[in-house]
């Protein structure tokens, strides 16, 4: 769990409660949270600066499913995982290999997944 320490983790989650929880958990795990962002526009703007080590993305940011951000992350080789209420069918095939954490999930579970994603991006 300590792998997150010092890591810059971008959180993109439109739900305030979830976003704050994830932020809190990451922060407590020693990670630096970029965001959280409630929409992809803000997240994209943040990416123009210092790039995170990894990212947690909700697929639906209140405007329907959107994968523009995912594509940008991929182009920047930033590992990420989907944190979503959709099941696998809603994920485009191009992102089939992206780790996916389906809501609802415990924070601990989420953190482990983020840890895995950030530490071992090639997995």
């Amino acid at each position: 769990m300590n792998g997150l320490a010092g890591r810059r983790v971008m959180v993109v989650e439109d739900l305030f409660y979830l976003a704050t929880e994830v932020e809190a958990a990451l922060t407590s795990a020693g990670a630096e949270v970029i965001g959280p962002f409630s929409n992809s526009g803000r997240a994209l703007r943040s990416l123009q600066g210092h790039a995170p080590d990894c990212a947690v993305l909700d697929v639906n940011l209140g405007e329907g499913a959107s994968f523009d951000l995912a594509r940008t992350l991929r182009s920047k080789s930033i590992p990420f995982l989907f944190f979503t209420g959709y099941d696998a069918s809603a994920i485009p095939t191009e992102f089939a290999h992206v780790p996916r954490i389906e809501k609802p999930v415990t924070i601990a579970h989420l953190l482990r997944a983020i840890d895995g994603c950030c530490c071992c991006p090639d997995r």
Partner: protein
Amino acid sequence: MGDSAAVEEARTRPTPVCAIGASAGGVNALQSLFRQIPDNLGLAYVVILHLSPDQPSVLSEVLGRCTSMQMHQVQHSSTLQPNCVYVIPPDRELVIEADEITSRPFSEPRGSRAPIDMFFRSVAAARGDGVAVVLSGSGSDGALGVCAIKEAGGVVLVQDPGEAEFPAMPQNAIATGVVDFVAPLGRLVERLSDLAHSKEAVRSLDVSASGNELRRIINFLRNRTGHDFTSYKRSTIMRRVLRRMQVCRIDTLAGYADYLQATPEEARALFSDLLISVTMFFRDRRAYEALVWHAIRPIVADNADRSGDEGIRAWVVGCATGEEAYSIAMLFLEELERHKLHTPVQIFATDLSEGALATAREARYPRTIEADVSGQRLERFFVDEGTHYRVRKEVRDLVLFATHSVLKEPPFMRLDLVSCRNLLIYLERGLQQQLCSVFHYALKLGRFLFLGSAETVDSAADLFMPLDREARIYVAKPQVTQLLPILPQFPTPDRITDPRAVPQLAPEQIRTSSRLHAEVLENAAPPSILVDANSNIVNLSPTVGRFILHSAGPMSNLLPSIVRPELRLDLKLALTRALEQGLSTTTHPTITLFDGERRRVAMHVVPVVAQPKTSARALVFFLDSGLVGADEPEIQTGDARPEEVRRLHAELKAAQEALVASRIGHDATIQELRATNEELQSTNEEYRSTAEELETSREELQSINEELHTVNAELKTKLEHLSVAHSDLQNLTAATEIGTLFLDSEMRIKMFTPPITELFNITRFDIGRPITDFTNRLEYAALVEEASQVLRRLMPLEREVQSAQGRYYVLKMRPYRTVEDRVDGVVLTFVDITARLKMERALTLSERQFRALIRASSQVLYRMSADWSEMRELFGGGFLSNNEAPNQSWLEYYIPEEDRERVRAVIDRAIVSKTIFDLEHRVIQADGTIGWTHSRAIPIMDPDGNIVEWFGSADDITMQRRAQGAWRESEERLRVLIEGVPQHVWRAENGGRWSWSSPQWRNYTGLSEAESRGHGWLAAVHANDRDQVMTAWHLGASTRSFEVECRIRHVESSEYRWFRGRATAVLDSVGNLSEWIGTFTDVDDLRKLQQRQEMLLAELQHRVRNILAVIRSVIGRTARSSNSVSEYALRLDGRLASLARTQIILTRKPGAGAALETMIREELLAQAAQDAQITLEGPELSLSAKPAEVLTLAVHELATNAVKYGALSHPDGSVRVRWEIERRGEENWLRLAWIEVGGPGKGGPPQRRGFGTELIEQRVPYELDGEGTLEFLPGGVHCTITFPLREGDSILQTNARSVRSPEGLNP
């Protein structure tokens, strides 16, 4: 002489007939004759030739070229016309009656036919005159005929045998002695012309007025010949005289009488004409009756007594044509029959005339003999052969005919009866006497002589004694000596005395003195005997008898044998000298014993000087020298040398005794010779009999020879025709394509036509070799065997044979029949029928197939008469009952009554127009029910275009008719269905080429039926989908199914809608794809719903999971802000309830927003707030999901707080909620203010930041991009929340924005 009715008939003046008979060589003679005969003689010529019965005769054609006279072949009967020629047809004989000439079949078997005789006789009988001409020929046909002609008064002409190619026939005619002229043809024609003219003259003579001339002629004849014809019938004599006149070409009787006197030959000719003898059966009936009584009966009776004898023998002398001989034979037969005896009877019948004998042997007599022969005898002894009678063989066998001259030749011996009638009358008395001696010698003692009514034996009364003077029956007297009488010395005795001899008779005076001298000489001279050259006694002097001493044995005439024995030796020597050397001899006296007297007798033998015509003779004188004394020595001159004399005497005596002994031996030898002679006589008779049979055979042969010669003559004429025919045959053989092979009975090749060489390996050099030697190219092993079989059974045979080359032939084998219907081999013909056979086979097959087709057909087939009145045949095919016999009432039988008129009307139209009858109509089926049929019939025409009959067929369309109705209904239903269904229906060929489309398609796409055809329909398909559609078609070709979804343009809205296309392959009976039937179904709405549903589901997942995540957070945050469990429970319950309400509102209906006012009111009311304490102000507004959720929870928190601590906790407190929409830049913002009034006033912000605060102050900005302020004032809380109103905030409104699915969601 026979009677004839001809004199009377001559008056009727029928056409004079010239009958011409010819045989071998006759054709040439006839041609020559007719070339020379003038065509105006007024004669009708009848030509009789020996024609072959099997060949048609061309004689009339041959002769027709030689004369201008008309030619007739007498096929049946013709009336004679002057200057016409009538020719005998083959195998017929001709007879004439009045002027009618008739041909009829031969009554005689081949070999004994004598058509010339037949016709000549017929002419003689019918005409009493006429001219007969006998030309070249072999045999004797015509000989009898000319006799008849002559007897009847006709004239007979004969071709010179020297000129004739075959002289036998003329010679035989001449031999009858009745021929008037013998000359070469040229002269004959002249004579014929003369005859024709003189005949005319003679015919016009007044016979009755010429009595004097006739008497003069008869007198002259009596003077000349000594025969008095006065008592003969005048008509007969007249006829003969007239005939002679014709012959001599003298026109008047007076003229003839003069001619007769001037010409001695004519007297003889007339005499001989008059003497033509014709006898008849039982001539002088009374005489025959007497003969039976006096002669026949005794003879038969005697022979009955003596068994084993030689039988009865009789001799008919001068038998002529045999009637008398047969008459006597019949009498004997009758008599024998009466006594039931079988004694053999032999009758010798002789005559000089061969011609007459031939007739006699033939034994054919004209019907006129009915007058002479009783009916009983006719039946008993004759065979009725139509035109004539023939003596039965039984009688003929008894009679042996032979040529014999009774005057020249030895007679038959040991006879019981001699019949010699009407011969003696022609003879001189001396000759008569000699004949009587002959007859006497020939007859057995006491047997009988039968003479003609005008004859007697008075000249030989010592030999015969009359039994019945009237009937001229005599019996032979017993005689001491039965010596063969001395036959007349005439070398060629004639029946008649030569008239020229008459004047040589000595005058009476000379005869008288000579006799006186002879008598004196006789008395004066010593006894003497005249002997002939054979020493036979010719005459004795009156006193010579004592020198004769006949020894025992038969009477002899030979002088040296009957003179006294002592004289015999010397006499014999002396006679020899006299007869042979002509020397006179006087013998030494010899002592001769005369009744005990011993006398010396010397003999003087003088040869008589031979006169011409006589042979040597000798005269013997006996000189008696007186008695010898008893003691007188025999030799008186023995004195000189007595001893020697005595010795000589003794020797002489011994020699004499030896001589006597040898003489006795000699006599015995003579006896034996005599016996031998008799045997030879018998043998001679037998030879005669044999000779006669040979004669008969010879005649038959000759007759056949005749025919052969005639045939030969005709054959020569025909030979040209034959050679033409032969060359025709050769050409035919060469040209024919029919192989013909002639085999003989040994299977040897006789002839063949060229096509045969294709089948047999033979060439023309192989003719004559057996066919079995050659190979053939036929697949027919039994050829030879079957050919032999044809030969054996004589049944024609027909085979189809195949050659090795695969050609087919009809082989016909039939017996080779010659023209004579004799089988001589086999004829094989090969007709190439390959082509025909192939056709036939094809035809047969076709016919069989056709028959099978008819049998197999379920169709009705029928034939109708031309006017349909009759059904000839109907084959019902199980549908209608069969009709095999013609049926007139077929209409009633097959057609229901109410339809008959209609059917008949159509038929009548077809008959009139001669076109096809074609009608569907009802019929009565085989089972009696009514069915439907489709009937067609075609008229069959003859070449003239008339209908011969109709041939038709009819189908059973009963089921079809029923199905048709059902099908129409079904089709209508289907059409309604197809046009009613929402799908577009179409039909297509493989590859998607449409062939049909339903109206719905056309309406929807605006494409017409034609435009949609083929691939035209693709125009309505969205361009992007066309490839996919075509791919589906390609796939469908193998999978046999087509399924695709594509967009199709709606013509009115120009919009594309989604359609599902489906098609099913329609397979034919063998599984091949024949077409597709398919539909396009509008699935556009369905697709949209599906997409929406999928999106809803994803949203629901998303939402539910987010809610759960929110709830978790709410639970956690609530827990952290609660002081107690109860508080925690209460708060949590309230917050969850609020969440629930929001969800309820939001999910109430799709696309609906949450009505702001309602939402706030419900939240307040849920907190048990009083309606009066609440004021809600603001425009009607519905919020999307997220603002609604956030705002509702915020209201809940505010209300809870207000109820607990704020304005609502105080009864006077009130809460005013006011909202409005602000324009900020591009967006509309909602500004909602919560303002509490009248709260307890304890106010102040809470100690710690609570759930609500966080919600309003942090969450609103985070989630809604808005602002939230919260002020805790004494009257209560004032809260302001502002945020941009953005569409799509409701989950249920996500679809409303676009048809496109959200990215990441699969359609």
